[in-house]
């Protein structure tokens, strides 16, 4: 487990996380992220630093094909969230290039060492409300705006 919050990843930085179709729910006729999106069974939710992968276009070009290999299907949506929003939820950000083809832009969102799993679940589950959902299948117009 990460031992500290990597403060070299500054608060304004945007993170991209690929989204499974079943991490989307319909609420009031709109697609929205559900609480599974940022919750990770091993307490380390993989994301990519947007500016280090070349933004959404770079993500689609370089990261998505490898995710497609690992997942067995091509994700059509991503969630973006600022590191500031992650830290506001008392969660940490930690670089883990070794867990994605030595890509230095790969980070994980994780709990602090003292955080209980129960608290982690609520905090990570709540990140959906601070994130933005983007359809990357054909266009990059946002489906949902952070409140």
């Amino acid at each position, binding site marked *: 487990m990460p031992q500290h919050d990597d403060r070299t990843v500054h608060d304004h930085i945007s993170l991209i996380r690929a989204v499974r*179709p079943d991490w989307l729910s319909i609420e009031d006729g709109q697609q929205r992220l559900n609480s599974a999106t940022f919750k990770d069974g091993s307490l380390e939710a993989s994301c990519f630093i947007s500016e280090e992968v070349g933004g959404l276009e770079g993500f689609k070009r370089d990261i998505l094909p490898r995710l497609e290999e690992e997942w067995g299907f091509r994700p*059509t949506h991503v969630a973006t969230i600022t590191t500031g929003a992650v830290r506001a939820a008392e969660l940490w950000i930690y670089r883990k290039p070794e867990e994605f083809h030595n890509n230095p832009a790969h980070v994980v969102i994780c709990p602090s060492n003292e955080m209980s799993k129960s608290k982690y679940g609520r905090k990570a589950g709540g990140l959906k409300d601070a994130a933005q959902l983007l359809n990357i299948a054909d266009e990059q117009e946002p489906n949902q705006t952070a409140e």
Partner: protein
Amino acid sequence: MILATMPPVIEYRQEFTREANTTVESAWAQVAPDSYGQGRWWKEIVFSRISKFERNPETEEFGTFNISEQVAQRLRSNLSKVTLQSLPLPTIVPLSGHGLSLAWATRTRAIELSVFADGDVTIDALEANNYVDLPDAGDLDAMLRWLILPAEGQPRHAAAR
């Protein structure tokens, strides 16, 4: 028994498939199939769905969204202790990192159960999309009873057996 007062018990949903670009969307039917046998039916459906995410013990493959046999067993064990015979079916969604999330929802309330890769289970209650602390926190059976109890000002479910 008035049909309109019965809890929703049959879920119609678009199932996720490898190729599909679908979104989970649930609707609920209104009638409980009592003939299915003492309410055990909902567990059978849920156990069956859990097994779809369980790692195949005959292969070495451990996919990104699979859960281990031990995790699946822990989950089934927790669900087995639930005494309620009539419940909405939960939405079952894999978590990255070999976990699984089950969510039971009514109009205003929800119970979210998460099982982590090490087998730990957490249970959360939500009311109007906000997490709430219940006196029986951690007791799945009690929390599910809270789920199907009427919120203030709403009619009581007739089939919360």
